[in-house]
C-alpha cells in the first residue's frame, strides 16, 4: 500500500479538547502506516480548517483524508466537499466521531484519548480500501404534498403555491383550520383567531395551485426524495363536493327536527344533525353526512327530505364510495398537529365527573361567538359563574403524565383568565407552578392580566372536590398549597378550567412509520438536528411544521411552516438532488445464481437474469441497506462505501493493539 493519508484531529474549541488530548492523538496518528501528515486544529469545520485540508492535499499529495471531529451525521458532507475541492474524489474521505461518541460521553481523559486513537486507527486501516465513487443525481418532481390542514399546513401551502408550486393539501377532517379554527382570541395580542385564519382558509380553497382534499387520508407512501408516489383515500362524505354550495338547506330539511348528536367541532358541547356543516366558516363549505347517525345510510329507509331540499343541485349522493387518488410529489411536509391531554387521566381534577370542570379547549368554544352558546360563558345549568379556577400544567411537567412543558398553557390560561373576567366579571384564580411567559409581548400580557384583578396563586392543585358531595354540578373546592405564602388554600369556585397540555396525535406512530421518519420518546416527530435542521427529518425530502414536531404557539408554528416551505422550495428549484452512492452491486463472475438475495430486498430491486443465471440489482430501486450483501453466501454482492474489506479493516484497526 502506498497511500498518503492525511489525519486531522479537531479540538472543536474545547468540546473535544477538554476530554481528549488532541495533540497526543495527532502525534500517535502520524506513526501509523500510510499516514503522510497528521495535524490537530481548533475548528476543522471552519473555513481555515477546510482550506487546510485543500492545501495539504495539493502540497503533500494526500490521497486519503480522515477528519476526527463530530458525528458524520453533522459534518461528513462538509468535509467531503473540502476533500473534493482539494482535488481528489470525495469518497476518499472518512469521518471519525470523537465528540458525540467520545469526548461528550466520557469522564476519564486518558481513556477517552485512548478511544480516539483506536477509532482513528480503524479509519487509517479502512481508507486505503475506499474507491472513487460518483453521486447519483435524480430529478425532483416539483409538486408538494402537505399532510394536515391546520395553520401550519395552510401557511406552508400558501407559501409554496404563491411561489408557483403545485400543492396537494390533505386533511382528514371535513374542514381545514385545525385547532386554531376552534380558538376565540389569540395571545398576547387578543387577535380574533377566526379573523386572521379564515381569510387564509378561503385563499387555500380558491388558489389555483392548491388541490385541497379534506375528509381524506394518506394510505400509502412509496419512493424517495424527489420521487414520492403517494396514495390518498378520499372518504365518502355522501355529498358531491363540486355541486354543494353550503346553503344548509339539507340540514334544515333533515328528518331530525332538532340537532341530536354530539357536535365534534364543539367538542360535544353542542349538538348537530346527521347532515351538518362543521362550522359556519368551514372550508370547503360543504356539508357532510355522518353514516353512523344518518337513517338513510344506516337503514335505507328514510324519507330523504334532504335530497328533496337540495333539489336540482343533486349534491347528495348516498352511494358515494371512498376514492383512491395517486399522486407523484417530490417533497412532503407533515403538519399533522397535536391532541390535547385527556384530562380524565387525572381523576382527582374531576373532569368527566363533575359537570362544571372544563378543559381550556372547551372554554375556547364556550367564549366563541360561533360556539354552542353563542359566546356566553355559562355553567351547565345556564347560569354565569361567579368564581372560576384555572389550573395550569394539567398533563405537563408531571412525572405521572408528561414531563415536558407544553409551552402554550401559561399564556392561553392567562388569555382565558382575561376573557372569563371580561365576559362574566367572575373572580378568577390562576393556579400555576411557574409562570412561563418567554415570548414577544408575553410578560407584558401577564402584567396586564394581573392588573385586571385575576388572582395568581403559585401552587400545583392537589385536589378538586365537591362542596356538597351529593351535588355533582354544584360548587367545588380547589385545594392547593400556596408556595409563596406557605399556606394551604381551599378556594370555592363554580367552574374549573383545566389548562391541558399538548400531546402527540394518537396515531403519530402509524404516520411516522408510513413516512419512514422517527419520533422522540414523547411521540413528537423527530427533527434531523435540533438546531441546524429543525424542520428536516432523517428522510430526505420530508419536512415538519407545527405541533407534530413539538408543542409550540401560533407564531412559532407559522415561522416553522415557512421554513419547511422554504426547504421544499430549495429542493424543487435545485431541480435535482444527489443521492448517496451506497448502493449494492453484483460481481457477475462470483454470483452462483442461488437466489438467496432476491427475497432479502424489501424494494424488489434484485431480479434474476435468466440468460446469465445470476442476480441483477436495479440501482435505481436500491436504497443501500446492505441486507443482501450480508446474505450473499458467495460474497458476490458488494455495497459501495460499506464493502466487506472496508468493514473488516475497520474491525482490525479498532482492535489492533497500541
Amino acid at each position, binding site marked *: 500500500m502506498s497511500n498518503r493519508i492525511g489525519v486531522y484531529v479537531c479540538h472543536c474549541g474545547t468540546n473535544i479538547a477538554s476530554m481528549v488530548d488532541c495533540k497526543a492523538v495527532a502525534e500517535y496518528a502520524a506513526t501509523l502506516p500510510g499516514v503522510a501528515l497528521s495535524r490537530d486544529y481548533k475548528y476543522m469545520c471552519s473555513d481555515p480548517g477546510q482550506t487546510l485540508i485543500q492545501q495539504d492535499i495539493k502540497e503533500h499529495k494526500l490521497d486519503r483524508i480522515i477528519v476526527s471531529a463530530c*458525528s458524520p451525521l453533522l459534518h461528513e458532507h462538509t468535509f467531503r466537499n473540502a476533500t473534493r475541492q482539494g482535488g481528489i474524489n470525495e469518497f476518499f474521505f472518512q469521518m471519525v466521531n470523537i*465528540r458525540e461518541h467520545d469526548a461528550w460521553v466520557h469522564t476519564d481523559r486518558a481513556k477517552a484519548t485512548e478511544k480516539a486513537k483506536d477509532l482513528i486507527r480503524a479509519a487509517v486501516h479502512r481508507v486505503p480500501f475506499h474507491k472513487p465513487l460518483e453521486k447519483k443525481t435524480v430529478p425532483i418532481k416539483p409538486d408538494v404534498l402537505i399532510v394536515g390542514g391546520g395553520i401550519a399546513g395552510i401557511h406552508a401551502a400558501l407559501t409554496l403555491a404563491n411561489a408557483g408550486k403545485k400543492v396537494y393539501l390533505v386533511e382528514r377532517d371535513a374542514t381545514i383550520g385545525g385547532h386554531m379554527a376552534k380558538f376565540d382570541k389569540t395571545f398576547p395580542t387578543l387577535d380574533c383567531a377566526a379573523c386572521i385564519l379564515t381569510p387564509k382558509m378561503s385563499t387555500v380553497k380558491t388558489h389555483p395551485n392548491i388541490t385541497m382534499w379534506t375528509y381524506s387520508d394518506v394510505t400509502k407512501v412509496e419512493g424517495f426524495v424527489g420521487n414520492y408516489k403517494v396514495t390518498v383515500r378520499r372518504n365518502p362524505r355522501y355529498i358531491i363536493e363540486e355541486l354543494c354550495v353550503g346553503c344548509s338547506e339539507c340540514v334544515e330539511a333533515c328528518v331530525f327536527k332538532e340537532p341530536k348528536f354530539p357536535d365534534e367541532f364543539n367538542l360535544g358541547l353542542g349538538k348537530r344533525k346527521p347532515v351538518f356543516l362543521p362550522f359556519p366558516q368551514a372550508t370547503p363549505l360543504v356539508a357532510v353526512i355522518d353514516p353512523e347517525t344518518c337513517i338513510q345510510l344506516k337503514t335505507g329507509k328514510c324519507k330523504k327530505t334532504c335530497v328533496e331540499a337540495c333539489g336540482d343541485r343533486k349534491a347528495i349522493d348516498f352511494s358515494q364510495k371512498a376514492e383512491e387518488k395517486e399522486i407523484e410529489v417530490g417533497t412532503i411536509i407533515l403538519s399533522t398537529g397535536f391532541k390535547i391531554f385527556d384530562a380524565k387521566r387525572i381523576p382527582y381534577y374531576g373532569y368527566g365527573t363533575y359537570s362544571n370542570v372544563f378543559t381550556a379547549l372547551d372554554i375556547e368554544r364556550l367564549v366563541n361567538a360561533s360556539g354552542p352558546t353563542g359566546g356566553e360563558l355559562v355553567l351547565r345549568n345556564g347560569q354565569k359563574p361567579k368564581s372560576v379556577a384555572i389550573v395550569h400544567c394539567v398533563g405537563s411537567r408531571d412525572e405521572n403524565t408528561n414531563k415536558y412543558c407544553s409551552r402554550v398553557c401559561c399564556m392561553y390560561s392567562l388569555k382565558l383568565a382575561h376573557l372569563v373576567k371580561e365576559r362574566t366579571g367572575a373572580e378568577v384564580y390562576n393556579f400555576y407552578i411557574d409562570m412561563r411567559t418567554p415570548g414577544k409581548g408575553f410578560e407584558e400580557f401577564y402584567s396586564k392580566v394581573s392588573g385586571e384583578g385575576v388572582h395568581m396563586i403559585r401552587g400545583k392543585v392537589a385536589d378538586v372536590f365537591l362542596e356538597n358531595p351529593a351535588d355533582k354540578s354544584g360548587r367545588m373546592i380547589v385545594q392547593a398549597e400556596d408556595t409563596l405564602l406557605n399556606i394551604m388554600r381551599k378556594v370555592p369556585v363554580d367552574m374549573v378550567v383545566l389548562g391541558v397540555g399538548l400531546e402527540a396525535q394518537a396515531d403519530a406512530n402509524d404516520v411516522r412509520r408510513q413516512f419512514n421518519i*422517527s419520533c422522540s420518546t414523547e411521540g413528537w416527530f423527530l427533527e434531523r438536528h435540533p438546531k441546524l435542521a429543525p424542520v428536516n427529518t432523517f428522510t430526505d425530502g420530508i419536512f415538519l411544521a407545527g405541533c407534530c414536531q413539538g408543542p409550540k404557539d401560533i407564531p412559532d408554528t407559522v415561522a416553522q411552516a415557512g421554513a419547511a416551505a422554504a426547504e421544499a422550495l430549495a429542493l424543487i428549484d435545485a431541480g435535482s438532488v444527489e443521492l448517496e452512492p451506497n448502493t449494492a452491486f453484483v460481481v457477475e463472475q462470483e454470483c452462483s445464481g442461488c437466489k438467496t438475495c432476491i427475497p432479502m430486498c424489501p424494494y424488489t430491486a434484485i431480479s434474476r437474469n435468466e440468460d446469465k443465471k445470476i442476480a441483477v440489482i436495479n440501482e435505481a430501486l436500491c436504497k443501500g441497506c446492505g441486507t443482501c450483501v450480508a446474505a450473499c453466501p458467495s460474497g458476490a454482492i458488494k455495497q459501495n462505501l460499506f464493502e466487506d474489506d472496508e468493514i*473488516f479493516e475497520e*474491525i482490525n484497526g479498532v482492535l489492533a*493493539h497500541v
Partner: protein
Amino acid sequence: MSEPTNTFEPRIVAFFCNWCTYTAADLAGVSRMKYAPNIRVVRLMCSGRLDPQFVMAAFAKGADGVLIGGCHPGDCHYVEGNYKALRRVTLLKRMLADLGIEEDRFRLEWISASEGDKVKHVVNEMVEKIRALGPLDMPGKHTHWDKEMEELEAHVNHSQKEIPAHAH
C-alpha cells in the same frame, strides 16, 4: 478474586445502524450522558448489513464483547433489515455458545433515535457483565491452539516416521 480482573478493561466492538442506534449514540453525546469508554462503534447503514463474519472477526481480533444496535421491530428505515439481523443473530448465538463464548459477550438491542439513555444503560451493563467474565482473548487462545496443533502434528509426524522402521 484474582488480580488481573481489576485492571481488565473490556474491549467492545459495536455495530450500530445509521438511522436509529448511531443517532441515539449521537443523542447521548449531545445530552452529555456519561457511560463507560469501552465501546468502539462501527457504523453500518442498517443492522441488516451485519454479516455474521463481522462478529466472528471482532472476537477473533480480540474483542471481549460485540454489541449490535438496530431500529425497533417495525421501525427499520429499510422496512425489515432489523428482522434479518435478528434471525442471523439468533443463529449466531448458538454457534458462539458452541465455541464456548459466553452469552453475555454478544448482545442485540433495539435502540431508537430518541433513546440516548438506552445506549448509556446497555453499554454500562454490558461492560460490567464482561468485566465480571474477564478477558475472552481469542487471539491468545488461537496462539495456544496453534501451538497445540503444532505439537500434535510434530507428534504425528514423529510417529509416522517410526512406523516404517517397525515394518521392516
